[in-house]
């Protein structure tokens, strides 16, 4: 089945059976390795991508469902070899340990900050409740998102 969609700003077309998930096609057919295969049941958030600007778990989406849609992954954020301010904030705040959950967290944080540039700590916690980290205690991840909000504000973005 042929499916066309926009991936990180570029039109792509894949020819795959409809029982494949977006997660699976991104990783195995399109080489997008930032999208992690975690629980595969929508519970861990490691496979988070932005679908038409909204965070979703790509493990629960069948590939034909993204026909004509816009998909954004972490690869979109660090353009021209330069890290996005949210990525910098994650490093500075020490919010990365093993790193497996990090792409999902950063994409959810990105979607949050686009919608709500100055979130409260409580709002950050709530927005990130669909992303699970097994290394940290979340404190530094929340710190990182709040730091990213500050950075983006200073940059006027």
């Amino acid at each position, binding site marked *: 089945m042929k499916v066309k969609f926009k991936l990180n700003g570029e039109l792509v077309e894949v020819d795959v059976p409809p029982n494949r998930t977006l997660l699976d096609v991104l990783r195995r057919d399109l080489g997008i390795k930032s999208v992690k*295969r975690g629980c595969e049941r929508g519970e861990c958030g490691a496979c988070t991508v932005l679908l038409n600007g909204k965070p979703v*778990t790509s493990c629960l989406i069948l590939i*034909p469902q993204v*026909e004509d849609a816009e998909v954004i992954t972490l690869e979109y954020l660090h353009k021209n070899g330069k890290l996005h301010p949210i990525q910098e904030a994650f490093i500075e705040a020490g919010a990365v340990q093993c790193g497996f959950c990090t792409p999902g967290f950063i994409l959810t944080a990105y979607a949050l900050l686009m919608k709500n540039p100055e979130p409260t700590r409580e709002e950050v916690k709530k927005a990130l409740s669909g992303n699970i980290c097994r290394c940290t205690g979340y404190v530094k991840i929340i710190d990182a998102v709040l730091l990213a909000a500050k950075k983006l504000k200073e940059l006027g973005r």
Partner: protein
Amino acid sequence: MVIYYLIPKVNYLRPKTKEECLKLINELRDFKVLAGGTDLVVDLKIGRFRVKNLVDISRLPELRFIKNEERQLRIGACVTLQELLESKVVKEKLPVLYEAIDSMASWQIRNLATIGGNLCNASPAADTAPPLYVLNAKLVLESVNGARVVNVEEFFLGPRKTALKPNEILTEIIIPYPQGKAGMKFIKLGRRTSFTLSVVAVAALVNVEDRVFKDVRIALNSVAPTPVRARSVESRLVGKEVSLSNIYEASKYVLNDIKPISDVRASAEYRREMSIVLTKDAIIGALNSIGITPS
């Protein structure tokens, strides 16, 4: 070696209009309707069932609307939970539904999951059900033969069983706005605060006149094969004075309305105890929401 889930081979069909969809499912055998997919895709992965065809209705324009009418809110079955959470009219006029959706899943899941899917999956733990029960919501079921309207309570027949005929889909949820100054509250007890399934959840709606309960509606989930109304509690409060002792006494009768089981989330005994506590708390919360503090 394959170390991840594979979905068995399946045909994917995406009708362009509601009419086309109804015609298609009238002819088709061995299919499942795909809306948000947050339950169905997992069920396909774990092999809960196998189907030959998936009919994707998530993009049908006729199923994606929120209409604020004078006396009722009409919601298309494929409106996502997040869209409802961000709807001003839901928050202002139907706070009990807002609170329930706010307690559900995660942002990622709410962006996919639909209100129609939450109902049609017919989990005893469906969190949109208790608020829709106390709001007396009606569901529109459509097939090529036309539309019929059922009360949300008649829709749930058992775990994963609904009143839908094989050639029908749920197209719309109609919620009459509560009359007068109605107090509402939804309380969910899960194993943790967020992104969790209910151990017990309770929705309450109250109307009070001259310190007397005029109308009381209570519904619970996760304590019976379907979500249930707690009519034993309701009937013991209507006409009674608003007092803590009346609320405490009536809440105990919730045991007549529920039939909980023990499962991975909680024991039946715990659910019984918590049903009493949460019923009481939901009634008090509903009163508080209209500025009444019972003593």
